[in-house]
């Protein structure tokens, strides 16, 4: 782990991971508080896949030629530009490479990017460096080198252990590959391996799912991400369902599957900490938590999204930034001007709070009063939601909880979060504009 050590040279021991972050008594009013602007996580997008899965409509491309060198240089260059722009001074607290199929990238590419990061900012020695891995024999053969390059967490897209399903989903691995990759990854990063599992697949029943999950739990590490297969327009699967070739489980069934999985995972010692994420032994994904807690993140690579204050050019407000989608165009732009930022939208204070609310409520711990205060020193959760009749109804039905700790969903409520969020957003906006008018 040469890269990693090198990267951690500037580590300052006083700085802990963000979840231990202490909020000082003098909370600045501006959402661009130093607490929030001096750190960020970094997401690097690898846009290539070998083939397209039948359910996926994500931004990714089947590479026409081997342009890995160019890609690596451009990713480095953009990382450099954006880190500078963000002026993240303390540290990048997590790093994640996703895609696409990032495990198609050469380990040296990842090493180079990490090196770029460590040259510019202090990397904590506990920095989480995650790589999404496809459990193919090729992917597995590179795990060691990735680990050597600095990766300390693997997120493995197992999806299913059913051969038939993997095939119909268009995945390029089989269940044996998955099991072997998983074992190898656990050997390299004990406690640092996450498994992606997908439910709600065509023709899946609750019983089949329950059995499959138990099987999975026997082999997996300390982290599980549970995704319901969503039918996206424009995918092959969508067409198959439309034409009646394939039937998807009904909403009733998938609701049952979700609840069944939550119970099973809990019985196996996994704590649910977000709608789709479960962990034991404190192995939550820090990178993903940074999204849900409204932290800054920098997105590098074609189509990557970011949220940070561009302090480097005198910015004061957080911006929602999107990089150019098409890899070829993005490469051209990075070569010309150092980055491929296509869209920049300033987030107003209300918009920032809306994101903090929407993302925060996905966590089982919800939003603590302290956490909210960090973003909204003038308007507390109680002021916003305490007096609302509609919110009262949600509380009475036991779907929402507002207490000394803060605002969060109940166990039942979490499954219905998307029905509650519009209600909460209406209340937030109402209070916010009232407060604005009063000032």
């Amino acid at each position, binding site marked *: 782990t040469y890269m990693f050590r090198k990267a951690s040279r500037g580590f300052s021991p006083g700085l802990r991971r963000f979840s231990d972050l202490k909020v000082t008594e003098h909370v600045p009013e501006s959402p661009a508080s130093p607490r929030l602007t001096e750190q960020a996580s970094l*997401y690097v*997008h690898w846009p290539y896949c070998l083939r397209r899965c039948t359910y996926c409509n994500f931004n990714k491309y089947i590479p026409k030629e081997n342009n890995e060198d160019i890609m690596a240089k451009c990713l480095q260059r953009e990382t450099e530009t954006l880190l500078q722009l963000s002026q993240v001074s303390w540290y990048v607290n997590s790093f994640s490479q996703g895609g696409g199929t990032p495990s198609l990238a050469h380990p040296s590419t990842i090493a180079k990017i990490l090196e770029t990061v460590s040259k510019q900012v202090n990397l904590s020695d506990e920095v989480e460096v995650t790589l999404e891995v496809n459990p193919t024999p090729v992917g597995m053969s590179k795990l060691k080198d990735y680990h050597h390059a600095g990766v300390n967490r693997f997120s493995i897209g197992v999806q299913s252990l059913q051969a038939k399903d993997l095939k119909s989903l268009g995945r390029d691995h089989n269940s044996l590959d998955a099991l072997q990759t998983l074992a190898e990854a656990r050997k390299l990063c004990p406690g640092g391996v996450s498994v992606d599992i997908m439910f709600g697949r065509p023709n899946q029943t609750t019983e089949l799912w329950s059995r499959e999950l138990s099987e999975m739990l026997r082999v997996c590490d300390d982290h599980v991400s*549970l*995704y*319901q297969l*969503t039918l996206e327009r424009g995918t092959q699967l969508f067409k198959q369902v439309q034409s009646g070739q394939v039937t998807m489980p009904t*909403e*009733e069934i*998938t*609701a*049952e599957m*979700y609840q069944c999985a939550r119970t099973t995972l809990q019985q196996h010692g996994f704590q649910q900490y977000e*709608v*789709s994420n479960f962990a034991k032994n404190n192995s939550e994904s820090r990178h*993903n938590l940074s*999204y849900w807690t409204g932290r800054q*993140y920098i*997105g590098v690579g074609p*189509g*990557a*999204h*970011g*949220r940070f204050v561009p302090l480097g050019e005198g910015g004061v407000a957080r911006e*929602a930034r*999107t990089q150019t989608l098409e890899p070829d165009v993005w490469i051209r732009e990075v070569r010309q001007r150092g980055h491929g930022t296509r869209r920049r939208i300033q987030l107003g204070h209300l*918009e920032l709070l*809306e*994101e903090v609310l*929407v*993302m925060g409520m*996905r966590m089982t711990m919800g939003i603590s009063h302290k956490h909210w205060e960090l973003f909204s020193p003038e308007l507390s959760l109680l002021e916003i939601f305490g007096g609302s009749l509609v919110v009262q*109804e*949600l509380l009475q*039905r036991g*779907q929402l909880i507002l207490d000394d700790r803060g605002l969060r969903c109940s166990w039942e409520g*979490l*499954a*219905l*979060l*998307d*029905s*509650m*969020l*519009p*209600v909460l*957003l*209406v209340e937030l*906006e109402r209070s916010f504009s009232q407060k604005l008018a009063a000032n």
Partner: protein
Amino acid sequence: MTYFLVKQLCDISLLGRVLPFKVCRRKIPSYNICYRVLRHRLVKSLPVLSSSFRSLSTQPAKDAVDLSKFPVDKIRNFCIIAHIDHGKSTLADRLLEMTGAIAKTEKNKQVLDKLQVERERGITVKAQTASLFYSHDGQEYLLNLIDTPGHVDFSYEVSRSLSACQGVLLIIDANQGIQAQTVANFYLAFEAQLAIIPVINKIDLKNADPERVESQIEKVFDIPREECIRISAKLGTNVEAVLQAVVERIPHPGGSVDDPFKALVFDSNFDHYRGVVANIAVIGGRVKKGDKIVSAHLSKTYEVNELGLLRPEEHATQKLFAGQVGYIIAGMKDVKEAQIGDTLYHHDHPVQALPGFKPAKAMVFAGMYPMDQSEYPALRSAIERLTLNDSSVTVQRDSSLALGAGWRLGFLGLLHMEVFNQRLEQEYNASVIVTSPTVPYKAILSSAKLIKEHGGEEATIVNPAQFPDRSVVLEYLEPMVLGTILAPDAYTGKIMSLCLSRRGVQKSMVYIDEQRVMLKYLFPLNEIVVDFYDLLKSMSSGYASFDYENADYQAADLIKMDILLNGRPVEELTTIVHRERAYSTGKAMCERLKESIPRQMFEIAIQAAIGSKVIARETVKAFRKNVLAKCYGGDITRKMKLLKRQAEGKKKMRRVGNVDVPKDAFISVLKRKEK
């Protein structure tokens, strides 16, 4: 060929010369006036000629015609009446061309139908008038063609037009034969005791069967087949014979130029710049510019500013004489001053007023709401402007908790309502929510207190919210119509069961020839206002035609039905229904609501109830899981957009109890179904 072209140009420039000049003389030219002139149809279609107008218009105006040359016996006033698409407007175009009122060009298509909706639907909504000059047996005649609306919804307009005529041309398609509106129009003319000339049109069509149509005419109208004139208005075949018949068979108007001046107002228009333009039929005497005239209705005196013929454009003259038909502008500021059916006379020669007309009664009501409340003022002014020229529409302000502020409009019939909506959309670009039409019910009150409140024992109920309780009512009444259906006999069985399901009572059934049947049914109006006509059309492959006339009120077992959401009544969905129809109506409403109320975090019961008795129920199941599985950095923007849209939608929803109901749900239940 050369000669023809020259003649054509002269015709146009003559007409064009008079009009722009007249306008210029009346007012100092301004942008608005220029606009009016440019809107002139002939100028618009032939813009090359506009330069020649200018040089000519500097000459002093002179009457193009000396109307004193036309005593009553040289005048014929007539209408053309027909079923939709039987060729009324095409015949009018030919008559106008042949008498030189308009130039003969390919472009003359439905010259008298000015509105976009008229041209699109092939119907006439607003009657127009054209005076034609015609030589017959060496004599010069003045023929006044008074165009009429083609549908009995507009029978009020038709009867106004008929009152200024002595005869009608009844056009019948040689292929389709007699249709429902042919019958309805015939009776209007027959009751007005006018001379009726049957004209069989479209004889050029491959499937034309004029013989069959002639025997239908003989059978249904009792007119000898020899009196029918076979023509092709499209090709101009035999149209000359129609003009001859007008002169020979239609009696000239009564009255004399020596009588005191007396005129019937049979139509009026409002012109933003000149005020009211009244169309009049001079019954006796003469009238000229500068005359002081009185309206019998209001006893108000006006000075005649301008008068003339309609050819069909206004064509100013110095005088109008007995028997003639034309327009008059006399400083009336409001259409109400030119009451249709009113009598005008000379201020120093009062006369006995003409009987006048019964005002039109609205029989179909519909709520009209802007799509968005911010469009309310624009929609208001559009409705105001449209009703200015259509006094038969009644307008009442209304408001709905779900749809906001709007209006309840009353129309003469279904087509009238459709035409009005289409004009709103086309001419004023207004997008509106139109609720499903309802009819005015009546209640005979038994409670002395209520009778006192209503000022009579009969109360008319337009709004279900005002439906008086059974306990204070002797009986409820519903409006009835006498429907006429004409269809090939192969469809008779299906049509009869449709009529039966609509509570129709058969009054007669006549074979008008071997294959075609004429059915008459007495229907509750409510049963035919929504989708009856569409069903009839589709079950007869388009061959059946339908028309109706109002047939007074009849006692009916009416009840008020509520729609409940989780037990709470939804005020704006309360409906008055016939007891027999309560279940099917309630069921349909619940089903439509179920489709459009989004699932929520709890179960929603949708019920139709009469009093406390639930007669239909649908359930919207609760969500069990509604949360997006994945939401990471790259998903936030999209997710926020979606949630914000839902939050915005939430704000616009109406809350009934604990149920959020989107406006769309109300619209889908209340709105008239799309065809």
